[in-house]
């Protein structure tokens, strides 16, 4: 049995950058999503086992044909300004997210939202949409007060995005870009007695060594998606007042992979892609480059997803086979042992996941006669511009699953999502009608077992065709003070309300 949670205290959490604003309905990403989830409540939340739990909706039903989702809202919920949360607000919020959120697949099938009474909302769908419940998670469907945000102004630039009102466990107090965000306890939160903390301060710290020092000194208590290097983590974990966890990243499913530009020769040849994949020692990367802190990625779906299968070709290191494949593809070694040259790009700013692996691949591919040139980018926009406009041979890339494959996985592999100029679309130029058919079926299949089978077939197919060579799961860590209890460790981790978080012994 756990001791009873204690009330009071301030939590200082670290954000790695200034958010543009605090409204997750129109902006995705960690720095908006984590504070936004504290300010806004959502219809559902998730536990650590991918099961939806009541939040603003005390009950919900999905019709047998999957074309209607009925939400029964709690009656006592109010926004921070005292207005009750009604079905009108839900309908409004669904519309806002559908029109403005970058993840269009979340609510695209929703035709309209009916509001038979103040506390019932019915989402009418054009087709069955199994991802709809997950799309009602805190970070993805924040319920906005219609009387505040529905004044006709463009939601993407709404002034209240910077001073939001929600129904979540904490109220907005102040945001100073580049410095901090202050939230305070919502004493009228609809879950009685919660939250336990008096205040949350999000401190914005850009520099990694400064962040590490802040944790060391006890000037920061909680940090998710930390950019602190894995080697420094070893040192921090030894401190008595600090702990780390890798739980809470299951839904995000962050994959690190090597993408091929399939439009370019010789990468259009499957044998060449396979040769490259067989030349990568993924265990060396996870055990040595990542000090045993990361796991191998085997395919397009992250290992913690309920749709994951490991029954695919594992591409274990096999240099002889790689050489044979290249020979068979007709790429003979020149006088200096080189068959051909390629360049590799990487995202700047995450050396352990990107640059170091690029350097490692250079030495590894040399063994099979490929001369790999590592091309650095000074900053993110430079890299994104190259990749989005298909001006690359190979690139390392970090892409998130975002809970349901429909949201974060399909986009990389669908023919219809080959879009020049859009980063994290199908920039590889991969197109297989069989894959498209499987994904289209999986997107509307309500039966979990059948859906799983479809995704297993999809994984086997793309792992065999290698539009990208998956390398590892990004080893995100959450750092937290040892005296904190009730950490948000659901599948959404830091994208969950901090309403159960409390200090066993608040620091003086």
């Amino acid at each position: 049995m756990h001791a009873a949670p204690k009330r009071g205290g301030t939590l200082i959490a670290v954000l790695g950058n200034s958010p543009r604003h605090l409204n997750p309905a129109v902006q995705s990403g960690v720095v908006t999503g984590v504070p936004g989830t504290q300010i806004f409540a959502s219809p559902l939340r998730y536990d650590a086992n991918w099961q939806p739990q009541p939040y603003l909706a005390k009950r919900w039903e999905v019709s047998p044909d999957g074309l209607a989702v009925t939400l029964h809202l709690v009656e006592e919920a109010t926004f921070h300004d005292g207005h009750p949360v009604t079905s009108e607000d839900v309908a409004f919020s669904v519309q806002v997210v559908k029109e403005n959120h970058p993840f269009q697949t979340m609510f695209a099938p929703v035709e309209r939202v009916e509001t038979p009474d103040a506390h019932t909302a019915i989402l009418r769908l054009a087709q069955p949409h199994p991802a709809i419940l997950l799309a009602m998670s805190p970070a993805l469907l924040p319920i906005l007060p219609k009387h505040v945000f529905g004044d006709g102004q463009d939601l993407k630039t709404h002034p209240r995005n910077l001073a939001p009102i929600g129904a979540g466990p904490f109220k907005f107090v102040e945001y100073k870009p580049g410095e901090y965000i202050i939230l305070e306890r919502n004493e009228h939160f609809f879950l009685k007695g919660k939250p336990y903390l008096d205040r949350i301060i999000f401190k914005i710290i850009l520099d990694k060594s400064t962040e590490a020092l802040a944790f060391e000194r006890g000037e920061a208590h909680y940090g998710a998606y930390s950019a602190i290097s894995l080697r420094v983590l070893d040192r921090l974990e030894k401190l008595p007042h600090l702990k780390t966890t890798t739980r809470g990243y299951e839904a995000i499913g962050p994959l690190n992979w090597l993408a091929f530009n399939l439009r370019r020769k010789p990468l259009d040849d499957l044998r060449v892609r396979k040769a490259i994949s067989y030349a990568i020692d993924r265990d060396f990367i996870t055990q040595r480059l990542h000090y045993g802190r990361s796991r191998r990625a085997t395919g397009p779906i992250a290992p913690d997803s309920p749709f994951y299968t490991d029954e695919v070709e594992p591409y274990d290191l096999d240099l002889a086979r790689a050489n044979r494949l290249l020979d068979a593809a007709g790429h003979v070694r020149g006088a200096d042992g080189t068959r051909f040259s390629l360049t590799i790009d990487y995202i700047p700013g995450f050396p352990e996941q990107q640059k170091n692996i690029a350097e490692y691949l250079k030495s590894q591919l040399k063994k099979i006669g490929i001369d790999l040139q590592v091309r650095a980018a000074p900053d993110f926009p430079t890299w994104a511009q190259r990749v989005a406009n298909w001006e690359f041979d190979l690139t390392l890339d970090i892409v998130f699953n975002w809970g349901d494959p429909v949201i974060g996985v399909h986009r990389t592999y669908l023919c219809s999502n080959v879009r020049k100029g859009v980063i994290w679309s199908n920039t590889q130029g991969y197109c297989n009608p069989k894959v498209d058919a499987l994904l289209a079926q999986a997107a509307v299949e309500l039966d979990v077992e059948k859906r799983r089978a479809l995704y297993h077939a999809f994984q086997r197919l793309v792992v065999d065709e290698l539009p990208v060579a998956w390398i590892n799961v990004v080893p995100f860590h959450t750092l937290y003070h040892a005296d904190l209890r009730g950490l948000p460790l659901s599948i959404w981790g830091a994208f969950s309300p901090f309403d159960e978080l409390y200090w066993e012994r608040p620091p003086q």
Partner: protein
Amino acid sequence: MAWLRFVLQRLLYGAGLLLAVLVLNFLLIQLAPGDPADTIAGEMGGATPQLLAQIRAAYGLDRSLPVQLLTYLGRALRGDLGYSFFFNAPVTALIWQRMPATVLLVVTALCLAVTLGTALGVLAACFPRGLLSHAVTVLSLVGYAAPAFWLGIMLLLLFAGAVPLFPVSGMRTIGQAGGLLATAADVAHHLVLPAVTLGIIFMAVYSRLARAAMLEVLGADYVRTARAKGLPECLVIAKHALRNALIPVVTVVGLQFSQLFAGAVLVETVFNWPGLGRLAFESILRRDHPVLLGILVFSTLLVIVANLLTDVAYRGIDPRIRVGAKL
């Protein structure tokens, strides 16, 4: 009259310089690959083509370059530096918000560098073969060569990590209630490490400069005359030598003002100091062109003013320097 004409002439040059800075920087920024729509899409983990087009249209990025430039210049002349792509807030408001922090940091560092640097340089010059002189030489060389961010991190690890005397980051203790005095003390506490970091780097220059100038002056005839008159050594140094030795120092203060700003970018990033330098750095990464341009315009203005003040200071120190006089 000559005085007024001189100032007016300088102001005119300044206006020309400002225009050149505006146009050149506007064009230079366009050369950087990627635009704010890319960064915003990057932050969001992806975007649809419609969304990207919307963002570009909203910020006028879909118009031709000359049109964008003329619109910008027209607005800038009226004092409107545009809207930040990223924060969707007026650039002038963002700059005013961040400026006090930077001015506080830069002015403190400058005072520290000039007073300490000059004092050390003068002391070293008075005992040119002593231990102090050598120490100052070594110290100033190290200070001059050390990168600002490295020095900052080292000071952090030492005086905020190993010996926790000072706070790690920021400008004040967040959410701390208290009177004006308590707040001032809190800010001063946070200011020590960043100001010392920035100060040390520039102190090096002043101590070298003051030492060299002082050595030269001490050998001059009029100093020998002063000594021959039987004046005490401290009076000779303070009244006769120092004043002349200060001229090159003042010149460099004016010149270095702009470099001090550049140094602030790194120091502010390391210490999480919420100033203009960090805003500039972040704006580059976000391709937030209006903010970056705004900061450049602003720092140009500051440099112009600083140079004007330097010229005025010359007159105060050395009446021989006649403004506008033909040599």
